[in-house]
C-alpha cells in the first residue's frame, strides 16, 4: 500500500465530520476513537459504563434522524445490551451502528468474560440487523461508507489487524470477496482469521491443492450465491471462524445447504462448546491449531482421507 494506511478512526472522522447526521457514542471505550472526541465536540457522546443506556440513547438519537455509531466491547454490547439492541434498534429498524470491540480471538488475554464468541449468532437472529465482519482494518475502512449510509441497524465486528492483501475496493452489502479460485477446497472465513486463511491457502496451493478463499465480509445478509457456488464447484468446504460452532458461519452454511437441498463435505474450524485459553493472539492461534500452517495441515489431513 502507498503512504500511511487509513485507520478506522481516520476514515470514520472523515465521514462523520462532514455530515451532521452522524453522532459517535461510547460506553467509555475509546480505544478505537482516541482523537475523535475532541474533533467532534458535542456530537461525541460518552454515556459511561452503561451499555443498555448506550443502546437506548442511540435509538432515541436515531428517532430524531441521527445515525448513531456506537462503540463498546463486543461482549457487553451484544450481550449485556442484547434486549435493547433487539427491541430498541432492531424492532424499530433504526440506523443504529454497533461497533463491537475486541471480538473473538481479538480479546486475547482478557479471559472468557471478554470473549465474544456468540456475537454473530445473536446479532444475526435479530430481524433487520445486518452483520459486517471485515477481514482487517483496511477491509473495515472499505466497508465503512456502505455501513454508515445504510438505513438499517448494523453490527460491526471491529478489526484493527493489518491487511495482508489488497482488498477489492468495492464493498457491497451482502457481497463476499473471492480471493482465489480453486476447485479442490474452499475456505470460507470472516474477520480476524482471514490472514491465517490466506497463508493456509498459499501453503495448500504449493502442495498442489487448488484452494478457493472467500472473505465473506457480511454474515447478514450473507452471500448465499457464493457459498452455493463453492459447494457445487469444490470437494470440501472449510468454515473457519473465531466464534462458537453454534450459530455462526458453520450453522449458516448448514442452513443454506439445507434450504437448497444440497449435500457438501464441510470441515468446521470453530470453538465447540468451550471458550479459548486466554493469551496473546499468536499464542491463542497456535494453541487452537489455527495458524496458517496448522489450518493447511488440518485441511490436508481431511483431503487425504477423502
Amino acid at each position, binding site marked *: 500500500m502507498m503512504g500511511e494506511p487509513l485507520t478506522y478512526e481516520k476514515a470514520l472522522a472523515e465521514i462523520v465530520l462532514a455530515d451532521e447526521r452522524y453522532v459517535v457514542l461510547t460506553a467509555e471505550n475509546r480505544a478505537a476513537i482516541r482523537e475523535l472526541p475532541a474533533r467532534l465536540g458535542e456530537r461525541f457522546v460518552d454515556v459511561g459504563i452503561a451499555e443498555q443506556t448506550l443502546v437506548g440513547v442511540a435509538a432515541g438519537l436515531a428517532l*430524531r434522524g441521527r445515525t448513531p455509531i456506537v462503540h463498546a466491547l463486543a461482549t457487553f454490547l451484544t450481550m449485556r445490551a442484547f434486549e435493547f439492541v433487539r427491541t430498541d434498534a432492531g424492532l424499530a429498524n433504526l440506523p443504529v451502528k454497533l461497533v463491537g470491540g475486541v471480538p473473538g480471538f481479538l480479546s486475547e488475554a482478557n479471559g472468557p468474560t471478554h470473549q465474544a464468541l456468540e456475537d454473530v449468532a445473536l446479532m444475526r437472529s435479530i430481524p433487520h440487523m445486518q452483520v459486517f465482519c471485515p477481514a482487517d482494518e483496511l477491509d473495515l475502512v472499505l466497508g465503512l461508507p456502505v455501513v454508515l449510509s445504510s438505513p438499517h441497524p448494523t453490527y460491526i465486528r471491529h478489526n484493527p489487524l493489518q491487511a495482508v492483501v489488497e482488498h477489492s475496493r468495492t464493498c457491497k452489502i451482502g457481497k463476499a470477496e473471492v480471493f482465489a479460485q480453486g476447485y479442490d477446497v474452499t475456505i470460507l472465513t470472516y474477520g480476524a482469521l482471514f490472514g491465517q486463511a490466506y497463508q493456509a491457502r498459499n501453503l495448500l496451493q504449493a502442495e498442489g491443492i487448488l484452494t478457493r478463499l472467500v472473505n465473506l465480509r457480511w454474515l447478514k445478509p450473507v452471500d448465499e450465491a457464493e457459498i452455493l457456488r463453492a459447494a457445487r464447484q469444490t470437494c470440501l468446504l472449510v468454515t473457519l471462524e473465531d466464534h462458537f460452532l453454534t450459530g455462526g458461519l458453520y450453522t449458516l452454511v448448514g442452513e443454506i445447504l439445507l434450504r437448497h437441498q444440497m449435500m457438501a463435505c464441510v470441515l468446521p474450524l470453530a470453538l465447540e462448546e468451550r471458550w479459548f485459553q486466554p493469551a496473546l493472539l499468536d499464542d491463542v492461534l497456535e494453541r487452537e491449531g489455527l495458524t496458517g500452517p496448522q489450518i493447511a495441515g488440518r485441511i490436508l489431513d481431511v483431503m487425504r482421507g477423502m
Partner: protein
Amino acid sequence: MHPRAEMEDPLIWLEEMARRVRERILRLAVGGGCFVGSALSCADLLVYLYARFLNVTRDNLDDPARDYLFLSKGHAVPALYATLVEVGLLPAERLENHLQPDDSIYWHPNRSLPGVEFHAGSLGHLLPVAVGVALDCKMRRGRNRVVVVTGDGELNEGSNWEACLTAAAHRLDNLIVVVDRNHFQANLRTEALIPLEPLDLKFEAFGCRTIRVNGHSFAELDRAFASLPLSFGRPSVVIADTVRGQGVPGFQERADRWFVKLTAREAEELIAELREGGR
C-alpha cells in the same frame, strides 16, 4: 394548548375528558381484556400532559420542534389510546379494532399508531430512549420538552437509574420523568416487595430534581408542571402519587385488578358507577 381549554374552566374540561378516557379504558377491557388497573392510575396524568402541557398535535407530528411523550409502562397503553383519541391524534374508530389481528391496537404500544412515539412493553427501556431524544434536542438548541411516564414497579429495572446518571451528566433539563406512583407492582404493593421510598431522595441522589404531587389533581399538576424545569441543568422528576384503578371503586388498590377482562354488561355497569361516583 387546545383552544377549547381557554374558553371554559380548564380544570372541569380536563375532568370531563378524563372521565371519557376512563370509559374508553373500561370498554377496551371487554372481550380479551387489558391492563385496566395500571391504565386508570395514569389516565389523569396522560390527559393532563396531552391536553394541557405538551405541544403535540395532529398537525405537528413531523415538526422537530414539538414535544414528546414516551409511555414507558407500556401495559398502561389503554390510557394512551383513549387519550390520543380525545386529543384528536388517533381516530376513535381504531379502538373498535382492539386486539384485532388486522390492526395494531394490542396490549402494548407500537409506533405505527399516530401519536405513539415508540413501542414499549419491556420495562426500563424508554427512559434511556428519551435521554437520546432529549440529547438531540439539546444539540440542536431546541426548546422541546421530553416527557417519560414510568411506572413505580418499573423502577426496579436498573436501566432507569443508568439513564438518570447519563441525563444528569449531560445536564438534560429538557427531560421530565413522570412517575405514576400507584404503589403497586404487578402482584404486590411496591413497599412490600422492593421498597422504593424515599423515592425523591433516590432521584435527587442520581442528579435529578424532584417534585411530589397528587397525580389525580389537575390543579396540583398545573402548579407542578408550571414550575419545570425544577433546576437549570438537571432533569426534573414529577412523582405523581396515584391510585391503581382510580375512578372505579371496585378496582381501586386491588392487586387482582391489574389485568381485567369484562363482559359488555359489566363494562356498562362500571361506567355507570364511574359517572355517579365522580371521575
